[in-house]
């Protein structure tokens, strides 16, 4: 990481450095505190916390992927959960095939749910998933190709704003219904569960969990660097330009749809990777990941953290999910929806730019006062203008 940093000093701002620093610290400290410290010690991190943290990190990566297209291109996708779920299913299918004869029916080829429903052979789209490199490729390709096809149509037809948002929602809703169907061959409502091994390692062992956690941290770090690199490039500047004034970009000679498409596909693939890391850590993938409410929640994480800041998106994902974990236990359990709902309303009203966005604004104001030259104005995107409301009838 330090080499990248020296080679391209502009790549990271202070907040980026803090973010990566915390990530590295977590990736180093958590395994030590989990494995090397006695469970009786107060600083011991129990394995369930490791998995929980790993889950948060995959959510953070997912939020990052949303911020790339929402924060920097202005594409409000209410279907990002679909890409996450597809990546998850690709990984889940690999993990299913690894069960082998250890399923309850002991069938060497067919997953339990197929035996259960009297399937005789493996459907064609399950071929190859027993081979990890293929599954890993599909983690990228399944969401990538869906995004490519969907985006190619939508951006060429210049579907924008809420119209785009609603059709992405329709897309994930259609996939939700499709994956719920038992006839689809993806395990219906029960989804894929009861995983045993990943690459020969027991998925429930502490060591595997630690490795998955570290991998999630690594993926988040690399994902952050990738996004940061993209948005700082000429390409990224065009993206922000499209967000703020798409027509102007077209009149300047750029093919806006191609730029959007590249960003959209990249974002979908990042979401796919997040999904693939998520599944082995939570142990289940089920169609409810496609539910439109999930995708809306991702948007909410990004908004809470601060749209168009990357770091904020990741922070928002971790914060909101930590709040969820915290509030759904103990005395507060019956009231947690009040708190979560209240949090969203409060953030919108009092921190309209999200936590990190507000911090940047505060810092920029202080700098202006102290007359310190701005660090990176690209971190402060304004709200893109939305079409004026139309008159009725």
């Amino acid at each position, binding site marked *: 990481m330090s080499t990248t940093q020296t080679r391209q000093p502009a790549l990271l701002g202070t907040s980026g450095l*803090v973010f990566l*620093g*915390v990530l590295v*610290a*977590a990736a180093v*400290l*958590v395994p030590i505190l989990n494995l090397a410290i006695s469970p009786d010690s*107060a*600083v*011991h*991190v*129990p*394995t*369930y*916390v490791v*998995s*929980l*943290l790993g*889950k948060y990190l995959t959510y953070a990566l997912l939020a990052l992927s949303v911020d790339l297209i929402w924060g920097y291109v202005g594409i409000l996708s209410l279907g990002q959960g679909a890409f996450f779920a597809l990546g998850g299913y690709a990984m889940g299918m690999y993990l299913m095939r690894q069960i082998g*004869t*250890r*399923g*309850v*029916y*002991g*069938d060497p*080829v067919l997953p339990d*749910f197929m*035996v*259960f*429903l*009297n399937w005789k052979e493996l459907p064609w789209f399950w071929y190859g998933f027993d081979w990890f490199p293929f599954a890993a490729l599909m983690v990228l390709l399944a969401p990538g190709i869906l995004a490519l096809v969907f985006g190619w149509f939508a951006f060429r037809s210049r579907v924008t704003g809420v119209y785009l948002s609603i059709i992405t929602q329709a897309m994930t809703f259609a996939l939700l*219904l499709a994956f*719920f*169907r*038992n006839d689809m061959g993806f395990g*219906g*409502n*029960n*989804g894929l*569960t*009861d*995983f045993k091994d990943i690459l020969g390692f027991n998925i*429930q062992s502490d060591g595997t969990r630690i490795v998955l956690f570290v991998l999630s941290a690594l993926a988040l770090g690399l994902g952050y660097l990738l996004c940061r690199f993209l948005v700082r490039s000429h390409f990224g500047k065009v993206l922000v330009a499209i967000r703020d004034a798409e027509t102007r970009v077209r009149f300047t000679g750029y093919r806006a749809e191609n730029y959007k498409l590249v960003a959209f596909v990249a974002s979908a693939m990042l979401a796919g990777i997040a999904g693939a890391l998520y599944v082995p850590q*939570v*142990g*289940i993938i*089920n169609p*409810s990941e496609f539910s439109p409410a999930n995708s809306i929640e991702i948007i909410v994480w990004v908004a809470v953290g601060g749209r168009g800041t990357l770091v904020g998106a990741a922070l928002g994902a971790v914060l909101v999910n*930590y709040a*969820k*974990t*915290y509030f*759904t*236990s*103990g*005395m507060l*359990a*019956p009231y*947690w929806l009040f708190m979560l709902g209240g949090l969203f309303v409060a953030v919108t009203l009092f921190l309209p730019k999200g936590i990190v966005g507000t911090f940047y604004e505060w810092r920029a104001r202080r700098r202006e006062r102290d007359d310190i030259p701005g660090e990176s104005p690209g971190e402060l995107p304004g709200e893109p203008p939305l079409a004026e409301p139309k008159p009725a009838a």
Partner: protein
Amino acid sequence: MLNLFSQARHAARRVAVGAAALALAGTAIPASAQETIKVGVLHSLSGTMAISETTLKDTVLFMVQEQNAAGGVLGKKLEAVVVDPASNWPLFAEKARELIAKEKVAVVFGCWTSVSRKSVLPVFKELNSILFYPVQYEGEESERNVFYTGAAPNQQAIPAVDYLMANEGVKRWVLAGTDYVYPRTTNKILEAYLKSKGVPAEDIMINYTPFGHSDWQTIVADIKKFGSAGKKTAVVSTINGDANVPFYKELGNQGIKATDIPVVAFSVGEEELAGIDTKPLVGHLAAWNYFQSVDTPENKDFIAKWRAYTKNDKRVTNDPMEATVIGFNMWVKAVEKAGTTDPDAVIPALIGVAVPNLSGGFSAMMPNHHITKPVLIGEIKDDGQFDIVEQTPGLIVAEEWSPYLEGSKDLIADWRSPMNCGNFNVKTGKCGGAGK
């Protein structure tokens, strides 16, 4: 308990930033932690499943209070730990882990849907704890760490079909369900069962609808059409909770009466009927192992206490509640028998435990971790209660592996030594499923 936050304060500042994000610790454990036995409650209190599961949370809390009033267990008070998995399946696994690993509960009562059970299953196996699952389900499972106190398909579906054949002379069958595992499997079993009874394929109609399906016009019209072919027709409904209200409302609207085409449901109980005007539904049926209208002193006593506890003299009871009560009592008995709450001692002790059920008999935990149950058929009355029209004479033992399914017909489960297996193949004589 973990409290990274306070520790990290002493560490370097940089670490503190990282650790703050990791400070997952909830509230501090009360000082009396050693003196109580913790009981986990893992039922959704929000989201789509709250509608069914909230009552079960209340039931466990009620049972804990009753047990504590009776002196607790092994001389210690019970303490319920309630979490809300919010109808979110991965959250079920996370909360299960939290209950077992962080809260160190001795036992968990929880789950409603099959997917939530499947989601927590690896957690219970890994951390070796005990789950009591109180809902009727598709079977095809028997795990060491799970005790199933709801009905397997042969404890609900098959007796219901038998009743309709014998008493209503039904010749033509509509198997209507929500598209998920329980209806799929139940309908597969029923289809095989009906065919084995000589029902031709053209007299069976199978229909699946998505969750929360609310527009039943077309399907009810199809059922009406299917039922007008001259043979007595019945609907076997495995439609999931939420979709039932619009389904029954549409039946009423299109004028399908129970005397024309009776509907027998496996997921509609007193709780669901509380949301419907039942006057047009009188005579439609449900098959359960318990109804609130069961006329026994045990039941009357239970209902009275339950209503006193909830301070609501209209609060209804239902089958999964009874299953929770049975499971709770079995666990208490097994813990007393084993003298400890250690799962390794309690799990074997549970087998063979028998406790009174609310319909006047005893239910026993069998070696397959399922319980024996009577089967009751009830007709809906206009007050939202059921009129019990048939009760099996004895108790029925659960067939966790259905003999009507290809993959499972040779499997049995027996968690006693020496077999100690949930999927023993009687043909190959090996533990580990049917193989190929």
